[in-house]
């Protein structure tokens, strides 16, 4: 399998300063990934393929990836290094009638054609967090096994969350907010776990995630509640993966990734949707499929790609079409972290979804 690790050198230097420690980590990472032919390219530097340098624009960077692919053959895994200031998210037209002007998305980077909802390759991103140590840490993570999971749901979505959480944990262990609030949240709940699941409210303007019962919206969890958390994280919170102009301390996703044993974060860049009760749909269904593939032993990157393919097929079989919110769900969910890491030992093959 081929992996392209892609970044913009100048923008990266601007974000994290001296990039030599990161380049050293990337070299070690490439050497450690025996199953991959991996290479690092900067879209803004001359490289061995003599491609025209790309501007720091999502469309141009995607074209650069397609040009590399024409030189070396199909790229199976694409790993973007840096946040929006280094490798910009695509700003796609929002299919839904809601407050998001755009859908921030990495989906076009995962697609070879213009139909961005359906991915053809794995794509993940290691945000910069404005810190070189934050980035290098993501490349050296290893998975420990604990055989336990943690789940937190807004009280109002307990039934819907139960169907998702069943993929990785005992539904009876699923916590709800309320009664759980950040004041009583125990960091130990997130320690020594394989999977962390959150089905809660989120806001672009807050680093906290919120519960709900009726008209009560308590703070369920905030970055200060996270200490030595472990495992694979999936969050359905609106803006759970929104990182534009955010620091490690004011985005839950980045705070999670800062943890030594959090190996990946799957979440939404914008307003996400889901049902109140089963059957699972939208964000619930996507996260459920993601967890199931991780459980089977696929890499995190393959798990999200396959989850999106299965999600689309399910929606088409159910209704005969992808509606606005199905499309938004497919575009808005991103993966942060090493896409080649596995959340569970087991299946080492890389099957496509079927």
């Amino acid at each position, binding site marked *: 399998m081929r992996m392209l690790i892609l970044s913009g050198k100048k923008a990266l230097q601007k974000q994290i300063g001296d990039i030599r420690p990161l380049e050293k980590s990337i070299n070690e990472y490439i050497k450690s990934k025996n199953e991959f032919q991996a290479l690092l390219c900067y879209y803004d530097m001359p490289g061995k393929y003599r491609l025209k340098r790309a501007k720091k624009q999502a469309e141009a960077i995607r074209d650069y990836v397609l040009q590399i692919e024409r030189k070396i053959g199909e790229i199976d895994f694409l790993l973007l290094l840096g946040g929006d200031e280094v490798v910009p998210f695509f700003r796609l037209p929002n299919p839904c*009638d*809601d*407050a998001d002007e755009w859908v921030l998305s990495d989906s076009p980077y995962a697609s070879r*054609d213009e*139909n961005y*909802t*359906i991915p053809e390759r794995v794509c993940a991103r290691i945000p910069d967090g404005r810190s070189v140590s934050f980035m290098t840490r993501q490349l050296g993570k290893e998975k420990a096994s604990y055989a336990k999971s943690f789940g937190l749901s807004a009280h109002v*979505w307990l039934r819907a969350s139960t169907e998702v959480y069943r993929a990785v944990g005992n539904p009876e262990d699923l916590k709800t907010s309320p009664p759980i*609030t950040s004041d009583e949240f125990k960091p130990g709940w997130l320690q020594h776990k394989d999977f962390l699941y959150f*089905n*809660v*409210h*989120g*806001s672009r*303007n*807050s680093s*906290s995630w*919120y519960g709900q019962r*009726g*008209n*009560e*919206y*308590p*703070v369920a969890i905030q970055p200060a509640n996270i200490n030595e958390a472990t495992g694979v994280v999936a969050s*359905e*919170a*609106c803006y759970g993966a929104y990182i534009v102009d955010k620091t490690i301390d004011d985005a839950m996703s980045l705070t999670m990734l800062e943890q030594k044993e959090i190996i990946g974060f799957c979440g*939404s860049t914008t*307003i*996400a*949707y*889901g*049902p*109140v009760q089963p059957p699972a*749909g*939208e*964000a619930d269904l996507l996260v459920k499929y993601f967890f199931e593939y991780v459980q089977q032993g696929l890499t995190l990157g393959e798990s999200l790609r396959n989850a999106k*393919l299965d999600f*689309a*097929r399910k929606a*088409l079989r159910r*209704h*005969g*079409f*992808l*509606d*606005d*919110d199905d499309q938004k769900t497919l575009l808005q969910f991103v993966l942060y972290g090493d896409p080649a890491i596995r959340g569970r030992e087991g299946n080492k093959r890389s099957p496509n979804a079927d």
Partner: protein
Amino acid sequence: MQINRNRIEEIKKKIAREYPEFKDIEPRITEKDIGPQDEIFQKLDMGVPKQLRHIYRLKFTKVVEAKDSVSLDRILMVTLDENLEIIKIIESR
């Protein structure tokens, strides 16, 4: 089939009963034709249905204040098929 006031009132009553936080909110109603989406079906190696679909959307929105005074946009969307049957109800997360 066109959506009428009676059907809208039925749905509003259902929403008020099952999702009381959206009671008394007047929904924004939209409708849309959805073409066959051939490219998506082909990309997924699925047979392409040829029929045109028509859906209606009732969108209920409100802004709430969380415990820490942060404003949260709340959206509930009801999707109806061409026979005015509910095919899904979803909420913003």
